[in-house]
C-alpha cells in the first residue's frame, strides 16, 4: 500500500510494538503529528512541557519496562533540547529511538529557520544516527534504528527526517522486526571462570547495569546463592540483587558501604557483571580490588581493560553467561567471609540526627514500609540520589530509575512520567532535591494534564547539597553559589500547576503526610524540609581507597 512518510513512521512504530511515545510538536513535524492524530487509537502520545522532559520520559519508560523508549521532537531547538536526554541514555546504555524533524531536503544546509545539524551534534552521544534523504529508505532506516538500539549493548539512536520526506508517498509493506543477533560466549572462557570461582576463598560479585538490561537478576541470584558469593551493586545495578538478602553488601563505590569497600580490598576474586569500573566505583583504578583476580562479563568488548586491567574477560549477555556459570560451578560455603563483610558493614554508622526535624533516614524508613517490591523509585542527581541508593530497600530490577553515568540533574521528573506511563499499575515515586527539581519542574504540568499519580518527594535542604558537601570537604567551606537563597514555595508551586502540595518539616509528620500523599491517587508534591547539613555518607574521596572512607562531617 502507498503511504506517506509520516504514516510509515507510525507503521514502523507499531511493527515494533510501540504503543507509547513522548514528544512535542513543531513546524517540521507537523506531518508526523497529523499521522499521530490518525493513529491515536493505537499510539498514545504524551505531550510534555519541554522536549528534554520528553527525552527523559522515553528513557524512564525504557528503564522501567525494558522496552525501547521513543521520543519525537521538531527540528532546531526541539532537536537540541533532546541532547541531554540522549546523552543520559547513552551513558547508561538505555535503548531509545529519537525521531527529529528537520527542514525539507532542499532547505538543508542553508541555515533555514529552525535548522540544525542534529546528526552532527548527536554523533558522540548516540550509538548511531541517520538522516533520511529518500522516503524509500525511511522504513528500512527506522527498522535499523530499532535494531541497533537493542543490539549488544543497548543505546540511543536518532533518526532525523526532513519535512518533505514526511509528506512523500511510497510503497510500504509491514515487516516483522528483526531480533538482535546473539553474542556467542566462549565455553573456554566460561570454563576458566568456573575454575577461578571454584578455587576462590573470598569471592565477591560487583554487579552493574548490565544485569538489569540483560534481565539477568534471577541468574545472578542463582549463581550467588549456589557459590555463596556476596554481591555489591553499582548505582546502575541497584535492584539487580535483593537488598534484604544475606549476601547483599550494598552499594559499591564513592558512596557505597564500608562492607563493599572492604570486600573489594580483601577479596581474592572479583566477578564483575555488566559493570564498567567507572571512576565513581573504582576511584583509584590501580589499586581497585588489588588482591583479587578479576573476571569481567560484558557484552561490549571495549569495556575490557578500559579502566581497570582484568584477568579474564567473558564476552556475552549477562543472562547467558551467568546461567552457564551457575550450571557448572560447585556449590560452596563462604559463610566466614560473608560474616566478615557483614561485620565490616556494621562497623561504621553514618546516622545523622536532627532533633525532632525530619531527616532523609526517617523518610526512607517510612517509605520502605509503604512501597511494594514492584513499585518504582525515580531520582534526580545529588545527595538525595545517594540516600535513595543507600537507604531504599530495592528488591526487584527495573524499580530504580536514575541517571548514573551522565549524572543529569533534572532527569527525574521526566523519567517518572515515562515510568508511570509504562507501568500504570505500579506506584511511581520521584525522590528529588530542590536543586534538581528546579531544573525541570515545568513537567509538573504534564503530571496534572494526564493525572499521573506520581508522588514527588523533594528533599528540600535549600542548598545544592552535593556540591556544597564537596565544598565543605575540599574547598575549605567556601560555599560558592551553592546557597542560592531561593524563595520557592513548593506547596504553592504544585498547586499553581494543578498538583496537590504537602509539606513535611517534623519527623512526626512523615508517616501521616506520606500516607495522605499516597492516598490521593493523583499527582502530589511533598516538600520535605531537611537540614542543609545532612550529608551523603559514607563517602570515599575521589581517587582514594576504603581506608580513606569519611563517616562523619559537619
Amino acid at each position, binding site marked *: 500500500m502507498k503511504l506517506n512518510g509520516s504514516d510509515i513512521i507510525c507503521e514502523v512504530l507499531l511493527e515494533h510494538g510501540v504503543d507509547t511515545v513522548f514528544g512535542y510538536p513543531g513546524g517540521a513535524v507537523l506531518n508526523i503529528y497529523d499521522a499521530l492524530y490518525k493513529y491515536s487509537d493505537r499510539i498514545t502520545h504524551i505531550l510534555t512541557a519541554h522536549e528534554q522532559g520528553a527525552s527523559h520520559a522515553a528513557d524512564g519508560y525504557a528503564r522501567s519496562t525494558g522496552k525501547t523508549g521513543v521520543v519525537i521532537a521538531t527540528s532546531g531547538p526541539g532537536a537540541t533540547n533532546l541532547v541531554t536526554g540522549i546523552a543520559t541514555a547513552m551513558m547508561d546504555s538505555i535503548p531509545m529511538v529519537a525521531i527529529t524533524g528537520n527542514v525539507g531536503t532542499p532547505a538543508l544546509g542553508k541555515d533555514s529557520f529552525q535548522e540544525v545539524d542534529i546528526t*552532527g551534534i548527536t554523533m*558522540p552521544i548516540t*550509538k548511531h544516527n541517520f538522516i533520511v534523504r529518500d522516503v524509500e529508505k525511511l522504513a528500512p532506516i527506522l527498522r*535499523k534504528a530499532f535494531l541497533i538500539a537493542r543490539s549488544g549493548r543497548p543505546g540511543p539512536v536518532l533518526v532525523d527526517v526532513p519535512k518533505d520526506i514526511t509528506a512523500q508517498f511510497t510503497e510500504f509493506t509491514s515487516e516483522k522486526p528483526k531480533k538482535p543477533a546473539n553474542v556467542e560466549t566462549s565455553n573456554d572462557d566460561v570454563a576458566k571462570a568456573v575454575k577461578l570461582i571454584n578455587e576462590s576463598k573470598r569471592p565477591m560479585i560487583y554487579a552493574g547495569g548490565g544485569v538489569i538490561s540483560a534481565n539477568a537478576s534471577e541468574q545472578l541470584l542463582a549463581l550467588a546463592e549456589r557459590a555463596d558469593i556476596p554481591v555489591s551493586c553499582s548505582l546502575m545495578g541497584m535492584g539487580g540483587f535483593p537488598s534484604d538478602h544475606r549476601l547483599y553488601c550494598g552499594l559499591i563505590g564513592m558512596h557505597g558501604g564500608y562492607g563493599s569497600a572492604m570486600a573489594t580490598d580483601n577479596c581474592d576474586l572479583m566477578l564483575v557483571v555488566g559493570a564498567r569500573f567507572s571512576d565513581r566505583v573504582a576511584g583509584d583504578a590501580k589499586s581497585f580490588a588489588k588482591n583479587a583476580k578479576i573476571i569481567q562479563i560484558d557484552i*561490549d568488548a*571495549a569495556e*575490557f*581493560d*578500559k579502566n581497570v586491567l582484568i584477568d579474564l574477560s567473558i564476552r556475552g549477555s549477562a543472562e547467558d553467561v551467568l546461567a552457564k556459570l551457575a550450571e557448572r560451578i560447585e556449590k560452596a560455603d563462604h559463610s566466614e567471609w560473608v560474616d566478615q563483610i557483614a561485620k565490616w558493614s556494621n562497623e561504621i554508622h553514618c546516622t545523622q540526627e536532627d532533633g525532632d526535624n525530619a531527616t532523609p533516614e526517617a523518610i526512607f524508613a517510612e517509605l520502605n514500609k509503604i512501597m511494594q517490591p514492584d513499585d518504582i523509585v525515580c531520582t534526580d542527581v545529588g545527595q538525595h540520589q545517594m540516600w535513595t541508593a543507600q537507604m531504599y530497600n530495592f528488591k526487584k530490577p527495573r524499580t530504580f530509575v536514575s541517571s548514573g553515568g551522565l549524572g543529569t540533574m533534572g532527569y527525574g521528573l521526566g523519567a517518572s512520567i515515562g515510568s508511570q506511563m509504562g507501568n500504570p499499575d505500579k506506584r511511581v515515586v520521584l525522590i528529588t532535591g530542590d536543586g534538581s527539581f528546579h531544573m525541570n519542574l515545568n513537567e509538573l504540568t504534564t503530571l496534572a494534564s494526564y493525572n499521573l499519580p506520581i508522588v514527588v518527594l523533594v528533599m528540600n535542604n535549600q542548598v545544592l547539597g552535593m556540591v556544597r558537601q564537596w565544598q565543605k570537604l575540599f574547598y575549605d567551606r567556601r560555599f560558592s553559589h551553592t546557597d542560592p537563597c531561593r524563595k520557592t514555595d513548593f506547596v504553592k508551586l504544585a498547586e499553581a500547576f494543578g498538583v496537590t502540595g504537602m509539606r513535611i518539616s517534623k519527623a512526626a509528620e512523615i508517616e501521616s503526610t506520606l500516607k495522605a500523599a499516597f492516598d490521593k491517587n493523583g499527582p502530589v508534591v511533598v516538600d520535605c524540609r531537611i537540614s542543609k547539613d545532612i550529608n551523603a555518607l559514607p563517602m570515599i574521596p575521589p581517587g582514594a581507597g576504603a581506608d580513606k572512607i569519611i563517616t562523619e562531617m559537619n
Partner: protein
Amino acid sequence: MSNKKVLSALVRNHPGVLQRVSGLFYRRGYNIETISACATENPKFTRMTIVVITNDELEMSQIIRQLSKIQDIRRIAVMDSDKAIFSESMMVKFECPPECRTEFLNLTFRNHMNVLYIGDSTATVTMTGSPDDLDAVLDKFAAYRIVEMNRSGLSAMEASDRPFAEMDDAEFIN
C-alpha cells in the same frame, strides 16, 4: 615507526563516516598522525588508513574495540609492517631557478619522480613510495628549498592474495 601503528578499515562510503571515525579519536584523546580515506573498487565502500601514534598495546586494543562499535565500519585491523604493504604519494614544489633546472631535472630522473609543473623559479614534482622512501628522497633534495609540500598520508594493504573484507553491503542502509 616504533611508536606508530597502522590501522586499515573498510567503511561505508557515506558523508558522515570520516566524522564518526575522527570524532572518536578526538573525544577519546587518541593521536592520529595521518588519516586517509579513499575510493575502493566498490562505490559503496571507502578504505581508510589511519596512522596512530601510540606505544601502548592496551591503548591500541581500546582504539580498535571502540572503532569496531562504529556501525559504518565493516572491518578494521592493524597492518603489521611484516604482513602488509604501504604506499604514500607526495607532491613537492621546490625552489628551482632556471640556472639549476638541468641539474634538478637529472636528480628527479634518477629518483623516478614525475615533474608536473615548471614555473619561472619553481618546479613541482610528484612521487610515490613507502614513507621511508619519500623521506630518503627528500634528503637528496636538501639543496633545494621546499616552497610547499602535500603528502597524501599512508595507504596500506595486506600482503596477501585474499581481499581485506567481503564487500557485503546488505546490512548497510542509507
